[in-house]
């Protein structure tokens, strides 16, 4: 457990330059091969993003005719065309995505925190079995669950509603798994015991003592879930038929697949994809600083 925790702490610290002051020798040795490999990896990941950013600035006539990485002149037009498309349905999709991802990730993080804490701290019959079932759930790709979930929700008459997309995403086996590992490492049993000695209720120990210690882990769970829901395609695709409830992924897909009769709306789709990335980037930049919190700050560290 402790080795896991230390591993976590290292990655958390690694995210912020400057906290690595205990290992000066590393600084002098710049390894060439890893650096080049990472740089190549970075280029591989960033080139498509750069393409989207630049393509979003091109007007329809520039898109396929000018040099790929030459910025165009059409961004303002693309933006206003996209906003005007079917009375601004794009922003409706954006709002829906924010709702699905924001609320869904928040609820999912709460559920993960409760269950992860319970699995880590309490000893009860069937705990390991339950955890193993959850682990099996981690291995199961959510894609193959979409259709069974649809059939289940259809029985409850909940399809084509906001709940249809929110409900299945609230329980995330991976989130619970992470929370358990994290709670076991970050919340020492001694602290919980001390709380009990002082007469605090279990709820109070959880909310006042354990939860603050688990925050960095929960931020991770939240971000994972947020990104997963934001990018999810199949579940909303199967669940929703009313395009006013579509998230952005689905909306852009309908924009692209309009049938052969109409000119393809490439510029709108590309601009839409570019704008859809911005909230994710912003979220990461804002939330990143929570990761730098030291994992085991305070408490019983000797």
């Amino acid at each position, binding site marked *: 457990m402790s080795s896991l925790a230390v591993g976590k702490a290292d990655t958390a610290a690694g995210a912020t330059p400057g906290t690595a002051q205990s290992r000066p020798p590393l600084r002098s040795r710049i390894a060439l091969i890893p650096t080049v490999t990472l740089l190549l990896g970075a280029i591989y990941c960033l080139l498509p993003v750069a393409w989207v950013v630049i393509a979003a600035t091109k007007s*329809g*006539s520039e*898109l*396929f*005719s000018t040099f790929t990485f030459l910025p165009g002149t059409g961004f303002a037009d693309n933006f206003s065309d996209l906003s005007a498309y079917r009375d601004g349905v794009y922003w409706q999709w954006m709002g829906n995505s924010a709702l699905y991802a924001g609320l869904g990730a928040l609820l999912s993080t709460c559920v993960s925190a409760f269950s992860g804490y319970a699995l880590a701290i309490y000893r009860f019959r069937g705990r390991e079995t339950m955890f193993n079932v959850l682990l099996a759930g981690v291995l199961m790709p959510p894609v193959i669950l979409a*259709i069974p979930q*649809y*059939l289940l929700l*259809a*029985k409850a008459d909940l*399809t084509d509603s906001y709940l249809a997309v929110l409900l299945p995403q609230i329980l995330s086996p991976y989130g619970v798994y992470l929370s358990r590992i994290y709670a076991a490492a970050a919340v020492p049993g001694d602290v919980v015991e001390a709380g009990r000695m002082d007469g605090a209720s279990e709820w109070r120990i959880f909310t006042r003592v354990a939860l603050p210690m688990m925050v960095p882990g929960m931020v991770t769970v939240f971000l994972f879930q947020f990104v997963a829901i934001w990018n999810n395609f199949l579940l909303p*695709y*199967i669940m929703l*038929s*009313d*395009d006013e409830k579509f998230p952005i992924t*689905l909306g852009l*897909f*309908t924009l*692209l*697949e*309009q*049938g*052969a*009769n*109409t*000119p*393809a709306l*490439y510029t709108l789709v590309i601009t839409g994809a570019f704008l859809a990335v911005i909230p994710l980037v912003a979220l990461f930049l804002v939330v990143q600083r929570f990761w730098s919190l030291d994992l085991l700050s305070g408490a019983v560290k000797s």
Partner: protein
Amino acid sequence: MPITKRRRLVFRSAATCVAVALGATALAACGSEDAGEDPSGPVSLTYWTWTPGMDKVVDLWNKGPGKKDQITVTVKKQASGDTLVTKILTAHKAGKAPDLVQAEYQALPTLVSNDAVADIASEVGDAKDKFAEGVWQQTTLGTDAVYAVPQDIGPMMFYYRQDLFKKYGLKVPATWDEFAETARALKKKSPDTDLTTFSANDSGLFAGLAQQAGAKWWTTSGDKWKVGIDDAASQKVAGFWGDLVKEGAIDNQPMYTPAWNKALNTGKQIAWVSAVWAPGTLTTAAPDTKGKWAMAPLPQWSQSEDVTGSWGGSSTAVTTDSKNKAAAAKFAAWLNTDGDALNALAKESGIYPASTSAQLSGAFTTPPDYFSNQPDFYTKAAEIAETTAPSAWGPNVNVAYTTFKDAFGSAAKNKSDFVAALKTMQDDTVADLKKQGFGVSE
């Protein structure tokens, strides 16, 4: 289990029986419903479609005939393609399919064999003479039933750069032999320029070309399906394009890519075998060459012939899940035969109507903007549409199309044998039909 398999086995004859049975019950039901239904209050229907602007067309119905009959239709816009078929079937499994769906012609047999779309022969049978024989036949699947009302069609045509044909001294090919000669002649005059490309991404294009040559990919004999993808006509088409690719007379890169758009826009490719909806695609793909293109009939396999294939097109179907099938069928018939509706469809959605009377009226009296240099564009288009060969779709077109992309994709890339790729397509399609439990005659 055996019973359902059996039912699917004898799909065609069963479909007819079911159709007759359904027709009878529907008729009986209609008789009593129609009398009793009108006072029973308003009906509201949902409609899955990908056609842009359809909500505006449906508004016409909701404010006009729909208001009178108290039938309100709500459009739920979807993405087009095979994925929508999957979505409809999933919804049907839960009994939650919408009342009306837009379906491409080649998807209808899949929907019918899954019992997802209803027979509406008694409600829309009268509309038959508004459509060309070959078009209507696609919605009946050769039975007495009618599973949909045709909406738009995609008769295939030959598009070429008028100015560049003149510059290189080329003649518009009337036969496929001339087409091959034209490709070679162009290569000689300008080695960097291609007449066109063979796109292994576009199964529908190849299917249309095979259809023109007389191929019938799916037919039924008795209770069994017969797959003719590897028939003589298709082999002729595959061999023809395979040879052109092999000798380098045409390009082998897929269509609908940025590179292809660029090739069209810069005159690196100077012709395109496409369908009536090509002006829309060219508008975005090759914006700089507006007014420089012209349309001609598809080259023929022999001088005496005059047929074309179709690429694309769709219909409006009523689902078996609908609780108001008669009302839904009434709307489907109005949408695709009423003059005002068809005018609006042309204006708002840019579709080319299946209804023959609409092909020369309203929006189709003037050429598309991109083809303003060809004033008789739609007159010619209507003449070509009339020569559309009948098509024969089966219940697993999606499988055949996927195999096409794989087999022809690698054949085009390696410039290897197209006819062998066709055989792969045939084998995979037959294997899948058997796996699904259909009877297949060899």
